[in-house]
């Protein structure tokens, strides 16, 4: 028995992956149920369709039951099992031709099949916690869509307040974005299975997208990537084309401190201009990399001279590959459950920090 993830909530921008989604919209994974791998489907002359499986057909599968063959192309054939010998299924199918690979589903042998998805997110103490479960039944061909955003929104619901203290160059804001991952378990014949399929780490931002926006629900337009050929660099998270900073009042710009930047030093760059557009000064300041993998607030340097009329601000990455921080921590896979229950929340342990290296 196995599942495979056939579609992830990600996209690419100029060849770089964006795993960031707007949490106010559906964040969905698509999975395919695969009860057993198939070697081939073939039809000897004058006989009905046969299926060859990888390994013997499970004993719970018997003649008279339905078998579905999912070809590698995604096309689904449905037949009745006539007989089974080892790894060969004789069906009542009449479709000619040989197809290699694919998988099979035994809907009658595995009753009440559904996928239980455990949604994990990082809490305020940077610990992975379970935020909810979703039960999903597959369609007649074993395809399952799991939409997880409703549980991720619970991470945002208490955090609409402006809690930034305006005392750091950049800070990750809990409730404005963060990491999540999913564990997919199968349950059938009333029994929850121990093993699970892990999604790896994805990201959410407490934002919305609008009709005709590029990249649909994905925040790719706002995700910084290490790509010098990218025409439109990542946008800051603001609705203003040119925000206004009032000296003496708290101000910040929000941005996605994306996983794509994780191994590089990031700096805030400022260039100040007078009324005539003449450049007056520049400033480069390093960001706090411990705040990565989340939506950040970015402060300006402030204390500008009276001659400064506008300024430009942007983020740069270090030119060299400076490995200077921990990896993108994720829940432990293959977790052990203390009470034997599949669905008791697991307290994953973050991987130990790596040693810092700086290369000249």
């Amino acid at each position, binding site marked *: 028995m196995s599942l495979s993830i056939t579609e992830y909530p990600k996209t690419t921008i100029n060849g770089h992956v964006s795993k960031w989604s707007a949490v106010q919209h559906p964040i969905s994974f698509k999975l395919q149920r695969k009860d057993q791998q198939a070697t081939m489907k073939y039809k000897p002359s004058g006989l009905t369709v046969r299926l060859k499986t990888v390994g013997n057909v499970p004993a719970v599968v018997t003649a008279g039951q339905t078998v579905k063959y999912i070809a590698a192309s995604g096309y689904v054939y449905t037949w009745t099992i006539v007989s089974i010998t080892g790894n060969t299924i004789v069906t009542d199918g009449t479709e000619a031709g040989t197809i290699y690979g694919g998988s099979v589903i035994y809907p009658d042998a595995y009753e009440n099949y559904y996928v239980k998805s455990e949604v994990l997110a990082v809490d305020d103490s940077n610990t992975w916690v379970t935020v909810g479960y979703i039960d999903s039944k597959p369609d007649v061909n074993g395809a399952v869509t799991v939409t997880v955003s409703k549980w991720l929104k619970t991470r945002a619901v208490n955090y609409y307040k402006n809690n930034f203290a305006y005392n750091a160059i950049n800070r990750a804001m809990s409730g404005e974005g963060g990491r999540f991952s999913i564990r997919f378990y199968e349950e059938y014949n009333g029994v929850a299975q121990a093993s699970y399929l892990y999604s790896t780490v994805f990201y959410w931002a407490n934002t919305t997208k609008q009709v005709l926006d590029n990249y649909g629900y994905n925040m790719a337009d706002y995700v910084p990537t290490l790509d010098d050929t990218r025409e439109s660099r990542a946008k*800051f998270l603001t*609705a203003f084309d040119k925000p206004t900073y009032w000296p003496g009042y708290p101000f910040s710009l929000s941005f996605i401190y994306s996983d794509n930047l994780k191994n590089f030093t990031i700096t805030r760059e400022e260039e100040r201009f007078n009324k005539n557009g003449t450049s007056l000064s520049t400033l480069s300041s390093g960001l706090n990399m411990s705040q990565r993998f989340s939506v950040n607030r970015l402060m300006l340097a402030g204390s500008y001279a009276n001659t400064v009329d506008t300024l430009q601000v942007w983020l740069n990455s270090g030119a060299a590959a400076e490995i200077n921080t921990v990896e993108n921590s994720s829940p432990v896979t293959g977790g052990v459950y203390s009470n034997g229950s599949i669905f008791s929340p697991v307290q994953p342990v973050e991987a130990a920090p790596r040693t810092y290296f700086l290369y000249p």
Partner: protein
Amino acid sequence: MRVTEKKTIKIGQTCAPNPVYVSWKSTKGREYWLFHTVQTEGLITEAAGDFEPYIDNLSTARGQIEDLSILAQPQLTLYALVDNEDLSGFKTILYSVNIEILQNPTTWEQDGPVWKAYRILPGSYKIVNTDEVRSEIELTLNDPYIFNLSR
């Protein structure tokens, strides 16, 4: 290598009278605006029930009808003359689910900012006439209601 857009930030003027500094959560991120010069404070009240006590002695009775409570909803109306280039960001306050006003504008840097949450009064807003370069926007916020006495 540059990894974000180059965002132009305008430096605003802060010498206007009666400043009210507002921050709100838009559909993208956190936004800010300094309202100034004039605001209108208002108050909406609504009866929350009344009763007529039995009068024992008409000669000593003080009245006939007593209120159970009065709901009191303060409001603050803000005004702004907004350049067209700021409208795309400014108008997001009109549908924001979190609007906060800075309560300690002169001490926030020492004490940390203190924000009070307000709620936008939904309504119909004219944003801009497309042949104008600036728009006058008036918006009303509901303060937290007043905790009043009740019987």
